[in-house]
């Protein structure tokens, strides 16, 4: 379970923040990184997030797999953008500075390269924070945090149930898949796509049936214990806010406000060095 979401328990100031604080900060930070295309802010954000990595005592080695996934994703996405729209930067920044020509419409312009730089920075601004959140937040605390920031406790409980039952369902999927394969179901590349989808269904049907029974059993157990009777609910993993929590949230809120003000003052979300 902890492996799947890569929660790493180490004593650090980031770990001591409550889950709710980290969730609020993550949301504010992600939103800020989505809004802005101001290169000056986008350079500042990855620097801060990598600094926070060292504060949280999470080593880059711990998240190397996830970072590689991110890098591959980022490179592919940039290639796709260039292949489909080599002049996107020109239309965004409203000027055209040709550097050199590859072939046909594939003319490399300074504006396009600048747009790609911004795109990469945007990933670097957003993604390390997500990794940091995943690595430093105990999954059991996650549901309590959701409830804390105002999500109804019933929905929070659904999230808690999902986290609780993912390993069980994963194990069951594995068991069913093995026994179906022993009966001759083919899932490898040798089969055609439609055939593989049908094989996947042959595994899924028993999985769904047992999950439906599970839903029945769990909801009966919860109903017997009076779940959903009261308007509120307390959480074993919930912790009160400390001063550092409030400070962390205030800093992230300020960042978001700064980003929005910046966009209003500039009159656009894009920082344009070409005019």
């Amino acid at each position, binding site marked *: 379970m902890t492996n*799947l979401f890569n929660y790493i328990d180490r004593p650090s100031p980031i770990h001591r923040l409550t889950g709710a604080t980290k969730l609020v900060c993550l949301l504010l930070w992600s939103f800020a990184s989505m809004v802005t295309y101001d290169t000056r802010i986008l350079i500042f954000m990855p620097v801060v997030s990598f600094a926070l990595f060292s504060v949280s005592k999470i080593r880059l080695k711990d998240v190397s797999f*996830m970072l590689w996934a991110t890098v591959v*994703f980022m490179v592919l996405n940039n290639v*796709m953008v260039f292949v489909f729209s080599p002049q996107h930067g020109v239309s965004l920044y409203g000027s055209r500075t040709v550097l050199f020509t590859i072939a046909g419409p594939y003319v490399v312009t300074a504006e396009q390269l600048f747009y790609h730089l911004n795109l990469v920075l945007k990933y670097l601004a957003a993604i390390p924070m997500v990794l940091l959140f995943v690595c430093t937040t105990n999954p059991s605390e996650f549901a309590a945090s959701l409830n804390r920031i105002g999500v109804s406790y019933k929905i929070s409980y659904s999230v808690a149930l999902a986290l609780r039952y*993912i390993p069980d369902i994963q194990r069951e999927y594995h068991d069913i898949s093995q026994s179906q394969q022993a009966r001759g179901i083919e899932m490898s590349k040798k089969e055609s796509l439609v055939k593989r989808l*049908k094989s996947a269904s042959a595994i899924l*049907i028993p999985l*769904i049936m047992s999950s439906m029974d599970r839903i029945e059993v769990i909801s009966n157990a919860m109903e017997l214990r009076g*779940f959903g009777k009261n308007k509120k609910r307390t959480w074993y993993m919930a912790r009160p806010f400390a001063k550092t929590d409030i400070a962390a949230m205030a800093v992230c809120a300020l960042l978001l406000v700064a980003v929005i003000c910046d966009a209003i003052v500039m009159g656009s979300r894009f920082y344009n060095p070409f005019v």
Partner: protein
Amino acid sequence: MNKKFSVKTIVAIGIGAALFFVCGRFVVIPSPVPNTNISIQYGVLGFMAAVFGPIAGLLTGLIGHTLIDLSWGWGVWWSWVIASGVFGLLMGLACWKFPISDGIFGGKQVAQFNIAQVICHVICWGVVAPVLDILIYSEPIEKLFAQGLMSGVANAVTTAIVGTLLCVAYAAAKPKKGSLTKED
């Protein structure tokens, strides 16, 4: 307590999201377009929405997709997360009245289910996801629509096969309404 949001719905959302996660994370068939996999989880989502309704569909999609993105570590792609949620919601609205739990899922329902899922996929991957991507990331439209088209077609095919089979199998396992008669 609100009938529509019963304990059973809450549990169904949790288990549904866990199923969505397991299917999306471990049953992956790569597709030619980058960052886009052919995944069977939308078949599961369509089925869950048809059985438990629109609210369950919406939340199952949102929670399941967020958890998948968190576990990969490539950042939460909110535009696509929302599109998954919208798919669950629309499927729930379209198919909620189906008597699957009474053991009935015949030719008429199969046709309705598949027409509904194709329309929902077109709305989600052709409109919701690209429009949000343009707003949030201002990526070029051509690229987004190519990605959207690819995943929309792939998801529609998988939903048609996996979703329909699941509904038929689940309905067959349920006792038919009125199948018991009272002895005199």
